[in-house]
């Protein structure tokens, strides 16, 4: 692979018009991908967008405290996640609902965190994927440490960590890139450059490409069209293969766009022009795969029904799961602060428990 060239050619396999680009080393990486695989990827993209839309709606209806929409970033997430093996480990940020879906995380489990009904999310070991990292950039170092551990253990597999363009300004990400290069850790650094860190455009974070920044640390880098699911799949496969064979870390800069707000609390009209939004709408990650499939005769009524049903079912399950959440009991507040008994926690637990008990008597 040519990950060291300083000229940042954008890896693309399907154009926004749904046409295949000429054969290249990158298309070789997905030579096994059949039309059926593309149909499955398309289905993933549609379902992931639907999960996101349903969660956004649930937030608007007051069922979730907050949600970080991924609208526009489906291909970056699905393409990279579908390159992973089950033994690989994912260190995510807070926006990787599409990755979580591909790892098999039940969407209801994703939602409960944003609802405020549970601690950070699921059991990371159940899916080989961490729960949302709210502290921007922190996960990059964790991924590097985990990767080093895998290397020491001689384990199969690799690590991937997701972060945004804004996160590349954090010391943690710089330190992670440096450490990973020094120790040749089997880590893929996957940056979804969605152009914005809340209201700050990527130009506030860097004046060179993020890919180039990686090279500055001695980490080879690829720059890929993040709205092209096949290109993302190819680039991630190449990077993971490097990690698995012991050749160390790779940085992937996936160029994409956050089509909606940063979170459901954000108002992008305060800092962003609608014209650029429109420009990116024309590069929609789902639309181009649909055009590709149509061109290849891969869309028929049966397929359409299948995709629609899957999206509908997932959305309905997610909504029912969210509304059916059993809320945590007050005393669970004191659970898991420590792995071993701790006298301060025991004291506070007992005190609060008797306080609540006295209250019940007085009120009922």
């Amino acid at each position: 692979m040519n990950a060291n060239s300083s000229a940042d050619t954008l890896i693309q396999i399907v154009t926004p018009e749904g046409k295949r680009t000429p054969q290249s080393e990158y298309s070789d990486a997905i030579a096994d991908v059949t039309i059926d695989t593309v149909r499955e990827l398309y289905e993933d993209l549609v379902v992931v967008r639907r999960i996101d839309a349903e969660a956004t709606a649930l937030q608007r209806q007051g069922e979730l405290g907050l949600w970080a929409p991924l609208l526009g970033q489906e291909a970056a997430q699905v393409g990279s996640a579908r390159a992973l093996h089950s033994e690989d480990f994912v260190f995510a940020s807070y926006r990787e609902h599409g990755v979580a879906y591909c790892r098999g995380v039940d969407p209801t489990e994703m939602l409960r965190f944003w609802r405020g009904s549970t601690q950070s999310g699921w059991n990371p070991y159940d899916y080989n994927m961490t729960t949302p990292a709210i502290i921007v950039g922190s996960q990059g170092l964790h991924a590097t440490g985990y990767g080093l551990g895998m290397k020491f253990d001689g384990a199969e597999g690799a690590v991937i960590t997701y972060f945004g363009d804004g996160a590349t300004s954090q010391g943690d990400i710089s330190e992670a890139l440096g450490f990973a290069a020094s120790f040749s850790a089997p880590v893929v650094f996957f940056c979804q450059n969605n152009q914005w860190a809340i209201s700050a455009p990527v130009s506030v974070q860097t004046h060179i490409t993020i890919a180039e920044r990686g090279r500055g640390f001695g980490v080879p880098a690829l720059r890929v069209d993040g709205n092209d699911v096949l290109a993302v799949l190819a680039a991630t496969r190449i990077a993971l293969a490097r990690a698995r064979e012991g050749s160390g870390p790779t940085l992937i800069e996936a160029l994409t766009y956050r089509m909606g707000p940063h979170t459901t609390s954000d108002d992008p009209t305060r800092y962003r022009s609608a014209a650029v939004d429109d420009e990116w709408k024309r590069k929609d990650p789902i639309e181009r795969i649909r055009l590709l499939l149509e061109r290849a005769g891969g869309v028929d009524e049966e397929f359409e029904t299948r995709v629609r049903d899957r999206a509908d079912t997932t959305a309905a399950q997610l909504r029912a799961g969210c509304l059916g959440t059993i809320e945590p009991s007050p005393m669970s507040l004191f659970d898991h602060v420590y792995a071993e008994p701790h006298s301060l926690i025991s004291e506070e637990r007992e005190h609060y428990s008797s306080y609540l008990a006295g209250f019940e008597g007085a009120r009922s």
Partner: protein
Amino acid sequence: MTATLAAPRTLPIAPRTLPLGKALNAGLRRAMDEDPKVILLGEDIGKLGGVFRITEGLQKDFGPNRVIDTPLAESGIIGMAVGLAIRGYRPVCEIQFDGFIYPAFDQIVSQVAKLHYRTSGNVKMPITIRVPYGGGIGAVEHHSESPEGYFAQTAGLRVVSCSNAADANTMIRQAIASDDPVLFFEPKRRYWQKGEVDVTASLDDAYPLHKARVVRAGTDATIVTYGPLVTTALQAADIAAEEGHSIEIIDLRSLSPLDMDTVNASVRKTGRLVVTHEAATFLGIGAEVAARVQEHCFFSLEAPVLRVCGFSTPYPPAKLEEHFLPDADRILDAVDRALAFGQT
């Protein structure tokens, strides 16, 4: 301090009713008007006006060199402010949420706090670090913390917290005018709480930044608190009044230095003290207040000093925060225990 410029150009008519957040905005505007060396740095503080809109409109009026949208890096923001301060600026940094101050912790406690001392007073650090803090808004992890204790324990830093709109407006200006670094904790769940603010008042006759304030006079017991819980304590005192108890409430305002004179005078009068804050009980500001009160008011105390604070757990998920946060009931429970003490 050096407030040299001509009459401010953008002052509204005073006094008027403003939410606490808008009072801060007016205070920042005034400070920038009065001193061209005052510059603001932070994530999303420009066009967006900050995630809580505290800096709204300031970049438009003062330009991007005085209201700087920084890269996403807290250590960078504070470290840059150190350099700017060495150069003679008065940086006002915004940390977007309490839980994001830790990446900057090293710069704050190792550099900001110590430079004046290390340079034998030759280098001043007139840096204000604004931190929206505390819970009660149903946020996700790392968005509801009360880290003030860490900073109050660090020599070289001043730590304050406002609780109402009028104080917010004055205190932010005083913090910026201070030649020392000030950690300025803003009670985020009270940003929308309104109060009367005189935005034209001069700092010369302002209530001192580091003096506590008796916000409600009473005779039976004292509640000492600060920041978001001042409002909660006032609610508790209202309920107590219906039950015939007269509660005095002190808003500490400053956590470092602590104004113990005001607290001691109150405890000598009432004989009973309850301290409440959202940060953990263990080793919190309340522990210091309690220790000092027993040292100085031992013979006036009719009951042990009680604390009603956050638990020694990480801040819980939103659905449990009503249990974590001290509310009027929990405060009253402690007041009742203090009042009942020794009266069997």
